[in-house]
């Protein structure tokens, strides 16, 4: 697909304001420079009142230039608050917030080189698509000719040329979404903030927009900070993901890291599905350890940190990495309590002692895999490296 490319060396919007030390042009040469950084960030709503609520608790985070960064977490976890603090819509309680090195903690939104795609798009209903896209450029006092040129380029970028003179209320959710993107990209911000922009779209459109957003980010080279509660969305689009829960940063890493190497029960449970089993360290030797599971037996798993014999830990196993077989050997066993057909997989609910487990096998019963019925006794096997040891 041929797309118009944003000039590689755009004029930063904040040029019209006094405080803007860095230029995007220079940071393209240093892809590892820091786009946004928050240090010891705390946000408390209704400070001093009985309804005081701490939305962010001492958050430290660095977002690199040119990356597609996602803040992921359940609703109410503080991810939107963090985004709104970056955008300047919310005042932080303590800590600092820097954008390309500049402390913006006390700047209003209009003085930040940052644009936002709002959750419900917040398109100006009394203006055409064209006027919506031109708004930011006009507010920056750009010359008319430049405004026109940029608007045209944006219309092409999001494929909305034929709707240029329509008003937002006559358009579908997907179209509004594109206009919102074009409007936020037009002033060529150093940071683009996206507040769950796909949540108002239906599933098919959402999947399509994921790809478009990703390629838009690559083409423009603008740092995207994306907020979502949808882990699939986060894994599919992001260069790096920060998982937030209850105002705390749980883990930051690539999608693979987050999925394969969860560092806490919350991350293991929130990203994908996990069987979480309480266990005790039975024996530890170098990078391997043996764990006792009550009513279940002993399993071996690699460990990343030092553990003490007798220490209480949690073991996490993804359902698709739990292998069921006929009972013919020693080792952990379970009873099938329920079988659910899912189309592309079969899910088995199992009981092993006091533990309830879930196993999923692709297209169960076919391709040599054995199928089981409720009441069957099965043996449990673990793929190598499939058990993660979690200390918290």
């Amino acid at each position, binding site marked *: 697909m041929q797309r118009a490319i944003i000039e590689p060396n755009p004029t930063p*919007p904040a040029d*019209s304001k006094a405080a803007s030390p860095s230029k995007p042009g220079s940071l393209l040469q240093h892809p590892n420079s820091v786009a946004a950084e928050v240090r010891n960030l705390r946000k408390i709503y209704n400070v001093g009142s009985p309804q005081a609520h701490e939305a962010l608790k001492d958050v430290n985070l660095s977002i690199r230039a040119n990356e597609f960064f996602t803040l992921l977490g359940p609703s109410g976890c503080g991810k939107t608050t963090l985004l709104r603090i970056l*955008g*300047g*819509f919310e005042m932080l309680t303590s800590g600092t917030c820097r954008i390309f090195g500049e402390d913006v903690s006390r700047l*209003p*939104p*209009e003085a930040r080189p*940052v*644009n*936002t795609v*709002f*959750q*419900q798009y*917040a*398109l*100006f*209903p*009394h203006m055409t698509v064209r006027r919506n896209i031109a*708004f*930011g450029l006009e*507010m*920056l006092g750009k010359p008319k000719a430049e405004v026109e040129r940029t608007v045209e380029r944006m219309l092409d970028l999001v494929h909305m040329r034929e709707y240029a003179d329509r008003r937002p*209320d006559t358009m579908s959710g997907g179209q509004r979404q594109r206009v919102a993107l074009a*409007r*936020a990209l037009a*002033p060529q911000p150093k940071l683009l903030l996206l507040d769950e922009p796909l949540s108002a779209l239906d599933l098919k459109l959402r999947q399509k927009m994921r790809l478009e957003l990703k390629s838009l980010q690559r083409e423009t080279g603008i740092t995207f900070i994306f907020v979502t509660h949808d882990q699939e969305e986060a894994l599919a689009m992001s260069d790096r993901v920060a998982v937030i829960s209850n105002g705390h940063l749980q883990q930051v890493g690539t999608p693979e890291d987050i999925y394969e190497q969860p560092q806490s029960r919350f991350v293991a449970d929130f990203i994908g599905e996990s069987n979480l089993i309480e266990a005790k360290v039975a024996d530890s030797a170098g990078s391997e350890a043996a764990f006792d599971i009550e009513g279940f037996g002993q399993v071996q798993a690699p460990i990343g940190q030092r553990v003490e014999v007798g220490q209480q830990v949690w073991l996490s196993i993804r359902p698709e990495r739990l292998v069921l077989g006929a009972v013919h050997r020693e080792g952990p066993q379970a009873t099938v309590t329920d079988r659910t057909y899912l189309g592309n997989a079969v899910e088995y609910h199992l009981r092993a002692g006091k533990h309830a487990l879930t196993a999923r096998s692709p297209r169960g019963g076919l391709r040599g895999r054995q199928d089981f019925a409720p009441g069957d006794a099965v043996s449990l096997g673990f793929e190598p490296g499939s058990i993660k040891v979690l200390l918290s």
Partner: protein
Amino acid sequence: MSTARLRDLRVFPGFGLLSVGCVVFLYAPIVVLAIYSFNDGRSVTRWAGFSLRWYQTVFANQNIQTAAMNSVVIAVIAASVATVFALGAAIATVNGKKGGGEGAYVVLTFPLMVPEIVTAVASLVFFVAVGISLGFATILIAHIVFCIPFAYLPIKARLESMDATLPSAAADLYASPAKGFLRITLPLLVPGLVSGWLLAFIISLDDFIITALVAGPGATTLPLHIYGMLRLGMTPEVNAISTLMLAASTVLVLISGLLGQAGRKH
């Protein structure tokens, strides 16, 4: 049910007829009044042919013209001042809900809660007590006061139905608070402002009892003049001038209705 006929479940027999009766009851007197304003004859009862003579009499009457002019001038000023004040109050109460919003709302709608006759005599007593002589100015002040809630409520409703993130979006796109207000909030408030102004205008134009008490000897408005004419008995001039006011009100309601519909389409 004994009859097997399936009817619209929502229909209750007789309700339609009653509704027609209700509308006929509301309209019959004003329609009859209007018809007799075209009656060519001194008697207001016997039909003596079509004529516009009573309208000619009304238009030739200098006092009626002065009174009408007063009414319009007072209504325009009162509605305009009330709308400007109400706009500020609506922005303040909708944005700053936290601090004392309830109290401000009670005060702003207080004029709606007090019986008109009480407002009328209280205003009279107040003006006399503080030594403001009754006349055009006192009518104007009283009208501004009771117009404020009528202008305030539609503006507030419009502001509340507005997407609250739009000002944030404007700020995000580098608009200063003043520019954001002028380019985004104000244009979107226009339907609320217009219907608030029109309501206030109609209310001011219609008022009789408050005006009657604070008018003093010199100043007069159209309703006051008509009331005075009525003291001399039911004359065809009363019919004619009443019909003119009916027509004016109807046109205003039509305009505000059409504007409201256009606003909703937005």
